[in-house]
C-alpha cells in the first residue's frame, strides 16, 4: 500500500506537464497573440465607418456588411471606403482595419469599433454629381487642420450592387493613387522657384507674341498676351513667360523645386501610400525644358501632391499633413516653402481670379486659384483647377482634375465652385 500510495504521485507528473504546457502556451500567446488573432481577419473587417457627421458609410459584424443607405453616397464614397473584396487597395475598410478591430491580451480582438472619417459624405455626393459622368478626382481639405473634407474619384460604382464590368479606373482612387499631366497648375512650382531665385522677377516684363522660338522649335501660347508683369503672366497662364522662367532657372533648379514641393515623391496619407509624380530634367536651352516648366513634357503629378502644395501656399508655406481620420498628437507638419514665398504665390493666385478667371464665377467665395489645361497628346486636355479659400472661417484648399475635361476654368473650375459653395454652406470646421 505504501508503495502504491507513493507511486500515485506519478499522476502528478502528468499534471506538472500540463501546467508546463499551459505556461508555454501563455508565453507564446503573450508574444504572438496579436499576430495570431489578426491573421484570418482579412475576410470582412468588423466595425463601422462613418463620415464626419455620423453618416454610416460602412458597417459590418464580421460576416454581414452594409454600405451607406443611399445610392448617391455609396457611389460617391466608393474609392474612399473601398469594398470588402479589397479591389480598392486604398479603401478605408482595408487601410483602417486595425482601427476597426484591435488586439490586446486582455480583451483579445475587439471588433465593432466605429471610425469617424473627416470626410463629409454630402460633399462627396455633390462633387460626384458635379463631375457629371466625367472621369477625374475632387479633393478638398481644411488647410488649417489637415482634415480632408471631400475625396471623390470617377468613374465609380455602387459597392452594394457591383456590376460585372466596372469601367476602367473604377477601382482606382484617382485623388491619391494616380498621377496625371499637370499642365499649367505646375506653373506654381516654376513660379515658386522663380520668386526665390530670380531677384528682379517683379521688375521684369514678359513679352508674349502668341508663340516663341526656343532651341529652334516653336512654343505656342494660348494667345498673344503682349507685355506682362509676373502677376499678369500667371493670370494669363502665359506659356511664353513661363518658358522664359524655365530657361532662366534651368533643369536642375526646376527638378529641385518639383521635389522640394513634394510633387514627385510618394506620400503617406494615414498609411495609404500615394502615387509618386515625375519630373524629368530636360536639357538646358531646349524647348523640352520650357515645356517641363509649364507642366507638360514628361511631368506627372497626383491630385494629392498638388493639394499638398496649394494647402501649404494657403497656410503660409507650412503644410498640415492631410488626414482622413483626424489629426493626432503625432500628426506632422511640413514646411514646403518660406512664409514670404507662400504669401507672394497666394497673392498671385488671388490676382488670377480677380484679373482673369472672374469672381462672378465664384460668387461669395474669396478664392485664390490656378487653372490647368494639360495637353495629353491626343488632342484632348486634362482640366485642372486648384487653389484655396482665403477665408478664416472656411480655410479650404482643393484640387479638381477632370480627365480629358477640356479647359481648366470652364470645367474643373465650375466643379470646384459647386463643391466649395456646398462646403461653405455646410460650414464644416
Amino acid at each position: 500500500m505504501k508503495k502504491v500510495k507513493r507511486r500515485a504521485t506519478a499522476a502528478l507528473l502528468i499534471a506538472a506537464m500540463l501546467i508546463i504546457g499551459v505556461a508555454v502556451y501563455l508565453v507564446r500567446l503573450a508574444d504572438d497573440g496579436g499576430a495570431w488573432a489578426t491573421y484570418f481577419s482579412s475576410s470582412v473587417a468588423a466595425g463601422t465607418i462613418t463620415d464626419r457627421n455620423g453618416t454610416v458609410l460602412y458597417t459590418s459584424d464580421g460576416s454581414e456588411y452594409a454600405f451607406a443607405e443611399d445610392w448617391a453616397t455609396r457611389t460617391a464614397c466608393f474609392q474612399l471606403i473601398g469594398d470588402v473584396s479589397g479591389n480598392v487597395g486604398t479603401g478605408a475598410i482595408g487601410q483602417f482595419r486595425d482601427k476597426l478591430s484591435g488586439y490586446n491580451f486582455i480583451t483579445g480582438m475587439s471588433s465593432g469599433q466605429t471610425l469617424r472619417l473627416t470626410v463629409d459624405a454630402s460633399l462627396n455626393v455633390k462633387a460626384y454629381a458635379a463631375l457629371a459622368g466625367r472621369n477625374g478626382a475632387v479633393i478638398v481639405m481644411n488647410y488649417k487642420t489637415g482634415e480632408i473634407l471631400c475625396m471623390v474619384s470617377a468613374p465609380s460604382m455602387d459597392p452594394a450592387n457591383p456590376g460585372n464590368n466596372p469601367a476602367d479606373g473604377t477601382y482606382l482612387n484617382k485623388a491619391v493613387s494616380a498621377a496625371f499631366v499637370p499642365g499649367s497648375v505646375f506653373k506654381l512650382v516654376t513660379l515658386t522657384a522663380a520668386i526665390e531665385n530670380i531677384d528682379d522677377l517683379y521688375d521684369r516684363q514678359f513679352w508674349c507674341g502668341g508663340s516663341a522660338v526656343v532651341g529652334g522649335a516653336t512654343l505656342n501660347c494660348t494667345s498673344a498676351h503682349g507685355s506682362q508683369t509676373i502677376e499678369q503672366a500667371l493670370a494669363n497662364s502665359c506659356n511664353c513667360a513661363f518658358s522664359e522662367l524655365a530657361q532662366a532657372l534651368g533643369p536642375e533648379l526646376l527638378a529641385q523645386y518639383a521635389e522640394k514641393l513634394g510633387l514627385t515623391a510618394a506620400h503617406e496619407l494615414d498609411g495609404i501610400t500615394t502615387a509618386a509624380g515625375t519630373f524629368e530634367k530636360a536639357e538646358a536651352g531646349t524647348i523640352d525644358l520650357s515645356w517641363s516648366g509649364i507642366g507638360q513634357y514628361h511631368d506627372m503629378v497626383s491630385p494629392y501632391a498638388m493639394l499638398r502644395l496649394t494647402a501649404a501656399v494657403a497656410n503660409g508655406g507650412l503644410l498640415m499633413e492631410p488626414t482622413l481620420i483626424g489629426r493626432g498628437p503625432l500628426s506632422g507638419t511640413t514646411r514646403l516653402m518660406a512664409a514670404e514665398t507662400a504669401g507672394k504665390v497666394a497673392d498671385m493666385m488671388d490676382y488670377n481670379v480677380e484679373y482673369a478667371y472672374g469672381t462672378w464665377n465664384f460668387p461669395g467665395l474669396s478664392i485664390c486659384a490656378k487653372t490647368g489645361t494639360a495637353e495629353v497628346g491626343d488632342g484632348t486636355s486634362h482640366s485642372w483647377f486648384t487653389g484655396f479659400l482665403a477665408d478664416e472661417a472656411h480655410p479650404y484648399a482643393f484640387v479638381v482634375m477632370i480627365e480629358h475635361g477640356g479647359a481648366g476654368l470652364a470645367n474643373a473650375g465650375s466643379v470646384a465652385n459647386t463643391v466649395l459653395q456646398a462646403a461653405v454652406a455646410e460650414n464644416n470646421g
Partner: protein
Amino acid sequence: MNFFEALPELSEYVLAGAKYILPFLAIWLLMRCVRSMLREKYEPETWAYLIDEAGAKRPVHHWECIIGRAASADVVVTEPSVSRVHASLMRDDEGGWNLSDIRSKGGTRINGRPVDTDEPVEDGDVLSFAGNDFTFRDIDEKKRAAQAMRRTAPGRFIGPGVTLLILTLFQAFLTMEFTATAQPGHVLPIALAFLALMVIQWFCYFVMRSIRRTGFEPETLAFFLTTLGVAVVATSTPGEMLKQIFLVMIGITLFFFLGFWLRDLRRVKAFRWAAAVAAIGLLGLNLLVSEAVFGAKNWLTVAGVSIQPSELVKVIYIYVGAAALDRLFERRNLFAFIGFSALCVIALALMGDFGAAVIFFTCFLVISFMRSGSFATVFLAVTGAGLAGFLVLSVRPYIAQRFATWGHVWEDVWGKGYQQTHALSAAAAGGLFGKGAGTGWLKDIVAANTDMVFAVLCEELGLIIGLCAILAVISLALFAVRNAAQGRSTYYVIAACAAVSMLMVQMGLNVFGSLDILPFTGVTFPFVSKGGTSLISCWMMLAFVKAGDTRRDASFVVKPQAGRRVRPADGEEEAEE
C-alpha cells in the same frame, strides 16, 4: 438575427455583463471545489497491530498491507528469513481481515496452519512469517468509530450546495448569453437544454443528500465541464441540444451504475475477465466492420447509432488494469494485464486511432508503474518498450505526417496547418473574457467542437474559463492522488489514478495538439468535446475517482462504515464556512 436587431440594447447589456460574470463564477466554483477537496491533511490511521514475541507493537496503517523485509513494505520485518515481499494483510469493508502469502520462501502461517490466499484472520491470532511470530490485534469498535469520525467530512466547511448554486448561476448567465446570440429557432432548445442540465445536477445532488453523502465536488467539476460541453454544442450544432442532454443523462446513469458496482470489490474482481473479453470483442468488432472516418477506423455504427468503442474500452481498461494488493504480485494476473494492454494498443494502432493508442499507452505506463513489484518491473518495462516500438512502427506514416506539420503550422495555413492556425487565431482573439457565447467563428470549422474545443472555449468564453476547464481536470487528479493516502484498496487507488491520468493525457493531447504545442492527434477534451461515447466514458471514469474518495460519508461508491455509530446532526451538516 431578428431578435438581435429588435433588442440591441438588451443583448448588448447581457453580453457585456455576462462576459465578465462568467469567468468570475468559474474561478469561484473552482476555488471552492479545490479547497473543499484538498483542505484536510490526512493523519496516519492505525487499524490493527502486529505484536512480536518481544512485545513490540507494529501498527498497521492501511487496509491493504504488504508484510516483508523490503523497506517499501507496510509492515517491515527485518529477519533475513523473511522474503522482501512476504505476505499481504487486507481488510474488507465489513472490518474482517485476510492474510495471503505472496510466493514467500519461508511460508506464512496462522496459528500454525499454512496460508495460501485470503485466509481470515481474527483478533488474537498468531501470524507466522518464515517462523517469526506476531500476535494480531484488531482495534475495537470504539476506536474504529472514532477513527472513522476523524476523517474529513466534506461539505461541513464549504457547502457543496452553495458550490452547485454557483454552477447554476453560471449556467443561467450562459443561457442568457445564448438567448441573445442564438438564431431564434434555437433559443428555446438551448434554454431547455441548460434548464435540463440544472435539473439533472440538482437531482443528483439531492439523491446524494438522501443517502447521506456530502462529497459532491468531483461531480460539480464534472457538471461544470459538461456545461461547457453543452455550450460548445449550443454554439456549433444548436440543433443537437436535446441529444446532448440525453447523452449526459446516459453518462450520469452509467456513472451511478459503475459507482455502485465498484462498491463491492469481490464483485468487481469476479467480473474482470468478462470485462476484458468484452473490451477485446468490441475492439475486434470495430476493426472488422467499421469504415474509416477522417482517416481513423474508430467508429462503429449499430442501428443508426454511432459509437466509438475505444472510448468505452478506456473504462474497461482501467477496470481490468487496476488490481488489489494480493493480486499485484500474481504472475498470471500480471501476464494477463500485459497481454490485454498489448491487444488494446495494437487494435487501436491498426484502427489508425493514434491519439487513443497514446492515451492507452500512457495509462498502461501509469498502471504499470503503480502496480510494479520487484520482478514485475522488468516485465512491464520490456512490454512497454515493445508496445512503444510497435506503436511507432505501425503508425509511422501517420506520425511522420503529424510531426512534419508540428511546429510549422503557420507555413501551411490553408493546408496541413489549417485547424491549428485557426484554433490559435480564434483562441487569441477571445482575450481573457471571450467574445461572448455563440459569437465566435471557429465553431464553423470542421472538428472545432471536438478537436479544437479548447480554442472554441477561449474564443467565446475567454482564456480564463478555458484555463478553469484545464484546472478542473487537474484538480480531479490532485484529489485522486491525495486520496491515495487513505485508500481502501490499491484497486481503487490505481483505478482512480489511472482514470485521472487518462483524463489528463487526453486533455493534454487535445489542448496542446490544437495549439501546436504537441502534434495534432484529434482526441477529445474530457466532458467538453462533442461526442456521445466520449462524454459517457468520461462520466464513467469519474466513478473511479469517486471510488477513491475515502473522506467520511463523501462517496456513494463507498459502503457505509460498519460499526459507525456517531452521526452528525442534520443542522451540523448544513454548516458552511
